[in-house]
């Protein structure tokens, strides 16, 4: 059975364009037909005025025929105190939407953890069964030099140490000024994750404790919900902006918007950091010194030269 496997794996070509010309031609034809249909649908559409003429999305809360967008541009600054109207929509008018968005990100990070957690469980089961073929894990412990993690050079180490505070400073600026300038929690969180990801690539992803990441993520997510529930219990509704709005354009303005956005930033940053850490833990992809997971690469290195060595053990 094993020999047939290795014989089949020789057929392992690069997954490029399909084997025959047939599938590619069909795909090209379908794509062109789709392009023509899409073009004929979108061509008569006048982008410039569509937002103004679609008065059917009437809020009904203000004077007469006003679309949601017109209401936001006309009254957004006065109602939310945020100079950045996109932020006022994201965090204030549609704050509940943003809570769901953060939840989707959390679910994706959890799913990633689940996918890599399955790997460890199945490996443990294989070791428990102890069939003879698993012995070639001994061979795999000496991996291909091309995929063995190497230590970063001095220039990379020193440079990343110098860059890291600057990246964090930039992230703090983007995070805190979300209601004044382009940016905010999601963008700042991504910058935080990229800074920590740089350190993880240089010094190894084991340096970051995942428990700390989970604590930060859980606390900031819980604070988002707690702020919303305070508004629900004491004021008008969920995520009601009950703090002092201040003067639009000041750093301390827009009430709860900067507070919520900072929590969102910490949550996104810790989630994406754990995602990067998981990705770096994959053998042959990062610096994770996970020699015990190395044997998961076994189908890739199935050459006839390797398998007899495993049997000799």
């Amino acid at each position, binding site marked *: *059975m094993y020999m*047939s*496997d290795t014989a*089949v*794996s020789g*057929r*392992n070509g690069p*997954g*490029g364009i*399909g084997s025959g010309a047939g599938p*590619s031609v*069909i*795909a090209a034809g*379908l*794509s*062109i037909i*789709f*392009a023509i249909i*899409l*073009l004929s649908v*979108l*061509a008569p559409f006048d*982008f410039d005025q569509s*937002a*103004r003429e679609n008065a059917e999305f009437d809020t009904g809360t203000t004077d007469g025929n006003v679309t*949601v*967008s017109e209401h*936001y*541009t*006309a009254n957004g600054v006065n109602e939310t105190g945020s*100079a*950045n*109207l*996109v932020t006022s*929509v*994201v965090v204030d008018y*549609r704050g509940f*939407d943003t809570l769901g*968005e953060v939840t989707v*990100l959390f*679910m*994706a*990070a959890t*799913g*990633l953890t689940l*996918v*890599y957690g399955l790997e460890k469980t199945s490996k443990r089961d294989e070791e428990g069964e102890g069939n003879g073929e698993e012995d070639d894990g001994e061979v795999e412990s000496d991996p291909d030099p091309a995929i063995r993690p190497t230590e970063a050079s001095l220039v990379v180490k020193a440079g990343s140490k110098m860059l890291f505070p600057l990246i964090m400073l930039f992230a703090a600026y983007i995070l805190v000024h979300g209601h*004044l*300038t382009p940016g905010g929690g*999601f963008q700042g969180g991504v910058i935080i994750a990229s800074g920590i990801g740089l350190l993880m690539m240089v010094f190894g992803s084991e340096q970051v404790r995942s428990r700390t990441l989970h604590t930060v993520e859980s606390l900031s997510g819980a604070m988002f919900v707690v702020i919303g529930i305070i508004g629900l219990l004491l004021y008008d509704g969920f995520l009601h902006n009950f703090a002092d709005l201040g003067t639009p*354009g000041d750093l301390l303005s827009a009430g709860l918007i900067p507070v919520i956005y900072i929590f969102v930033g910490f949550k*996104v940053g810790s989630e994406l950091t754990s*995602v990067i850490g*998981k990705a770096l833990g*994959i053998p042959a992809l990062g610096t994770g010194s996970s020699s015990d997971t190395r044997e*998961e*690469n076994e*189908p*890739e290195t*199935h050459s006839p030269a390797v398998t007899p060595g495993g049997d000799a053990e």
Partner: protein
Amino acid sequence: MNPFVLLVVGLMTIGLYIVLSQKNLVKVLMGLALMETAVNILIVAMGYTPGGTAPILSDGVASGAFVDPLPQALVLTAIVIGVSILALALSLVVRHFQATGEVTLEYDGRWDE
């Protein structure tokens, strides 16, 4: 014709062709990401107002000269969710590669063992 229409249709077609023709799962995900970008550009372009500036209140900008902030906020959500989906899908591709040694979905009898 609006140049955004050509951009959106072009990106969408390229993405669809990649998804239909490629067998490499990483390339298929690239095609999906391209199609997602096309949709995001379309939504943002729908909110454009002639002569409009970024919807940020600052000195010397009249409050009526803004482009529509609502599609931009929606696309911000769409981008974040697209990143989540892409990360999860890529992790599944890596897991598939670890299990079978391939990044395609072609069946070659190895799963029988």
